[in-house]
């Protein structure tokens, strides 16, 4: 499954990454090509998994052997909201701020 420029760009868009960040317009195409090649090599390597027939195998998403208990529905103070807000790179009063969403 070779991946092309379009797939790389589409994946980057899903991941909210700008692949041209920090690159000049001249550098960008080569960098994108190199990245696409790297990803292709790695994903081709992933295809080694196709050698195994797993049709009868239940996926294992976590090695945990147990079922977790649940939390009682009781309020409890944890991190201080003001301390959390103090980390905001941009705030207005006690709101976090982002550019206008149309």
């Amino acid at each position: 499954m070779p991946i092309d420029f379009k797939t790389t760009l589409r994946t980057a868009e899903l991941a909210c990454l700008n692949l041209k960040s920090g690159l000049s317009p001249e550098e960008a195409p080569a960098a994108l090509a190199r990245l696409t090649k790297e990803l292709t090599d790695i994903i081709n390597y992933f295809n080694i998994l196709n050698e195994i027939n797993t049709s009868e195998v239940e996926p294992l998403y976590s090695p945990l052997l147990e079922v977790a208990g649940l939390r009682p529905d009781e309020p409890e103070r944890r991190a201080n909201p003001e301390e959390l807000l103090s980390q905001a790179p941009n705030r207005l009063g006690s709101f976090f701020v982002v550019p206008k969403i149309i």
Partner: protein
Amino acid sequence: MNEIYKLTLTEVVEKLKSRQISATEMISAALARIEVTEPNLKACLTILGDQALSAARKLDQDGPDPTRPLWGVPVTVKDVFCTKGIRTTAASRYLENYIPAYDAQVVIKLRQAGAVIVAKTNLDEFAMGSSTEFSAFGPTRNPWNLTKVPGGSSGGAAASVVAFQTPGALGTDTGGSIRQPATLCGCVGLKPTYGRVSRYGIVAYGSSLDQAGPLARRVRDCASLLSVIAGYDDRDATSSLHQTDDYTTAQPVTLRGFKLGLPQELWNIKLDPDIEDALKNALKILEETGVELRSVNLPHLKYSVAAYYILATAEASTNLARYDGVRYGHRSNNPQDLTELYMASRSEALGPEVRRRILLGTFALSAGYYDTYYKKAAQVRRLIRDDYYQALTDCDLLITPVSSLLAWDFGSFIQDPLTLYQLDLMTLPVNLAGLPALALPVTLGKTSGLPVGLQLIGRPFDEINIISAGLALEELFPPLR
């Protein structure tokens, strides 16, 4: 006693308890040692001088407390453990100025036990890497040879312990990030069973693989640290209710008749000649001591790197989605709109390897590829886990190399991610299976003079057994000097 910084953790505990040294003296010695070694080593991202000293003075005022097993002991924690009021960066530009509003559970446990955190150690950004070269703040150097990498991602922790900055450290291990640097730097590193130690407050990389654990110069020191940090935490739904043992009371196993399984698929891999030589010799010594070495098989081992990198990057890609420039961390200047805020903040402040892994993980989960990659990898994960379980039914523990390479030169693989990933083959299947494993140094390579290590792998929650075996092996292979 002008070299108290060289004491092992167990010795430090004894001397503090008997008041031969004060907590302030011990912490001062550690801070002084850090000051001396840091210019060359670069193991620490944040040094907590004043805070550590005032904590030590407070301890001295109150006097030693028998209920606090690490009373006055200086330790470092990898900079992925959230520390309230203390910068926690994960070695990323994105979190360069991030001050958590809460403590990681293991940080709370360390402090409750009387330990004093003197520094936060370097790592590959977000623990993604095996050399610390992907740290946004520059790499740590190997204490044995400053031109070599210390391994990673907990490279700062391993280098720090080996350079006697502190007698013990906490790291995290997602695919070998404790064991591999421990081996490359020549100390002991323990990755506990998944769920043995709370992950609460640890900057997440691969949530189903991450586990915190100790690094120290002695097996017993790792056991002491594990005793403090192990146990159920009701804030981490994946932490286990399984009973913990008192690891500090572990005794060396009787090696005569002890059954160690040698996974053929791992021992058949081409090793660096120094490693090959050292490990063959080590196995011979073990055999002569009466250890029963048995061949075992891990038929699906060769798929583990692919399965691991699909699962780990998939989990990472969404664990790192929270770094969006809105609530904390780096924010791009004057973004035109929301999309640009996201794109620019993330791209400017996340390093190339982190971005690469986010892309891989996003791809593996995306529409049309999920079944082929993510689900398939999870199925293979079960096969690999079953292989390890099966291999462990026939022997007490498994024994394997930790790394096929000695500590390498800076820059060797920086342009070759796939090769770098494949180097994790000895360690990462253990994380896929969730098993406990101990890496311990064996000797220095004959020609290189660099540390070589072995890995012991046990059954789930059987840390006590790998520690006991580690104590016995430590008698055969004394700590490096």
